[in-house]
């Protein structure tokens, strides 16, 4: 036997459904805690910045003003309005801007990892993305154990010599017998 839904009941159900959809959209973030974190220092960042520029900082990836994590430098976005992409070499101003952007991503976990000497670095979002552990539209730019990855870990652990940053080589690799 078919039951007929009364118009009033139908209106009530519809109103409740709409209200439940609207509730999350209207939720406010009331947590006004202030968290102090100490990121790895700018002084040791320059070698890592070079690695990030090459692997992440082109205009079609993080070298774009459309990204939350922005990497500045000659390959992409420039920090100074008077400098163009692909023009002059990366400047200290570019490195400063990249540093500010990098330490602004998941800062609480970055601070904890740094405070613990780089232990378990995948707690930091950037590390998970660069290793491809967490979904990343750009794939796995710095595979675990690669020179670039070790460079990033060295910075997180407070190393002052740049670690493996200078070992990182990134460029076209022709197949055997081919030239480029």
């Amino acid at each position, binding site marked *: 036997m078919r039951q007929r839904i009364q118009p009033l009941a139908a209106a009530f159900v519809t109103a409740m459904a709409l209200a439940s959809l609207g509730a999350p959209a209207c939720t406010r973030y009331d947590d006004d805690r202030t968290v102090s974190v100490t990121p790895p220092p700018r002084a040791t960042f320059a070698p890592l910045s070079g690695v990030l520029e*090459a692997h992440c*900082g*082109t*205009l*079609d*990836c993080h070298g*774009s*003003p459309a990204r939350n994590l922005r990497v500045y430098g*000659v*390959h*992409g*976005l*420039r*920090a*100074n*309005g*008077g*400098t*163009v*992409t*692909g*023009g002059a070499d990366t400047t200290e101003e570019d490195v400063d801007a990249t540093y500010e952007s990098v330490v602004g991503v998941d800062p609480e976990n970055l601070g904890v990892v740094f405070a613990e000497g780089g232990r378990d670095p995948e707690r930091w979002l950037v590390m998970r993305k660069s290793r491809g552990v967490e979904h990343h*539209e*750009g*794939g796995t730019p710095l595979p675990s154990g690669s020179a670039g990855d070790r460079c990033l870990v060295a910075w997180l652990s407070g190393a002052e010599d740049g670690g493996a940053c200078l070992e990182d080589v990134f*460029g*076209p*690799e*022709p*197949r055997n017998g*081919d030239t*480029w």
Partner: protein
Amino acid sequence: MKLPIVAALLLGLCAGACSDPIRTRAVDELGGEDPATPVGPLHRPGQPCLVCHGADGPAESRFSLAGTVYQLPDTVEPLGDVTVRFIDSTGAQYRVVSNCAGNFYVGAANFEPAWPVWMKIEWKSLSQEMISPSFREGSCAECHQDPATPSTAGHLYVGDEQTTFPHEACE
């Protein structure tokens, strides 16, 4: 409610959900065709080709990489017969040659690169190689827009003020 009406409503909802408003807007922003140039290999030089010729675009032909090459950095005179070389992250290589409008394109069926892709353009004894690869963008013009700014690289070019280029009609 009658079944056909429900079906029509569902179909309408699906059609709305399946269109990509960002893509549609990008296509609209390219504007209309130049009436002096027929739709084909010579049309729309300097525009981001894969907006239409990419996987989700409205054009019939599919490209994986495409762009336009010019003679000089400060002018927009196109240059034909430029060899455009690509090498992807697996070492696979491909090359195409620009037409008289400066346009070049790689059919997606011919070469689908494993990103990132490094590129180089060569004309006679001149050569220009990108200092960085493309990680995902197949339309050169998405990054190589004019003018060059802190977030755009300016158009592709081969020569400098010392270079002598041919002046040939392009039809």
